[in-house]
């Protein structure tokens, strides 16, 4: 079973305790009412979808309940690192 290191629990925990939360570091609109359709499309649907290093959000839903960020290789499925939400991109 794939083990994921939770930066809050400071432990490697089984993957089934976690939920995937999509790409990380996507900033919410500061002033949503001024957004054009194109900007909304960009924010809601357009993702980088890289081959290789991918920054993504995970939630330790059956553990501490916290969202955190992870860097995972989309080819090998190896987690390079995980870090707390709010920390700078690694």
């Amino acid at each position, binding site marked *: *079973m794939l083990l994921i290191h939770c930066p*809050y*629990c400071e*432990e490697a925990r*089984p993957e*089934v*305790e976690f939920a995937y939360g999509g790409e990380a570091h996507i900033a919410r609109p500061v002033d949503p009412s001024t957004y054009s359709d194109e900007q909304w499309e960009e924010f809601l649907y357009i993702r980088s979808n890289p081959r290789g290093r991918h920054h993504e959000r995970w939630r330790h839903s*059956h553990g501490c*309940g*916290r969202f955190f960020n992870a860097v995972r290789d989309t080819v090998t499925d190896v987690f390079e690192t995980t870090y707390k939400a709010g920390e700078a991109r690694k």
Partner: protein
Amino acid sequence: MVEIAEIAVSAAELKLGTEPVQGDGVRLSHADPKARYSLRARDAKVLAAVIGRALPGKIGDTDGGIACLGPDEWYALLPAGTDLPRVEGLPASVVDVSSRALGLVLEGPGALAVLSSGCPLDLAKMGVGRATRTVFETVEIVVWREAEDRWHVEVWRSFATWLWNAFLAVMPHAK
């Protein structure tokens, strides 16, 4: 036409036992009635002052019947009837969730094997007095290692019947 075998046990036939079940090296029973509280606060000091009890500081630690489940979340498992003070005007929350969950207790040298049959954590490495939220198969549970061979399992009421029967099914095979 393909014949489809009937399911051996339907959900309606599952019963939540009331009496303890003694297996070979493992005993399954209900925990004593408990008062349960969900405690939340960003600042543990605020919460500790409100309830007048010490809070464990690290995730997974327990102290006086209170387990730290997350960075801002604690779970109090206290003797039935215990009343914690409610919060007013402070950034913290104390919620009585006594009826939300049931406590099942697995005891004996085979208890670890029974729990490990459905729980993906390495429970053998879990220290006595530690508690954590995790899953059994797909059911969310809180596991509390009360002693070397005694495990308290908190499970939401609606999943308790299934969990009880899942434990029963594994017990004959746990050595």
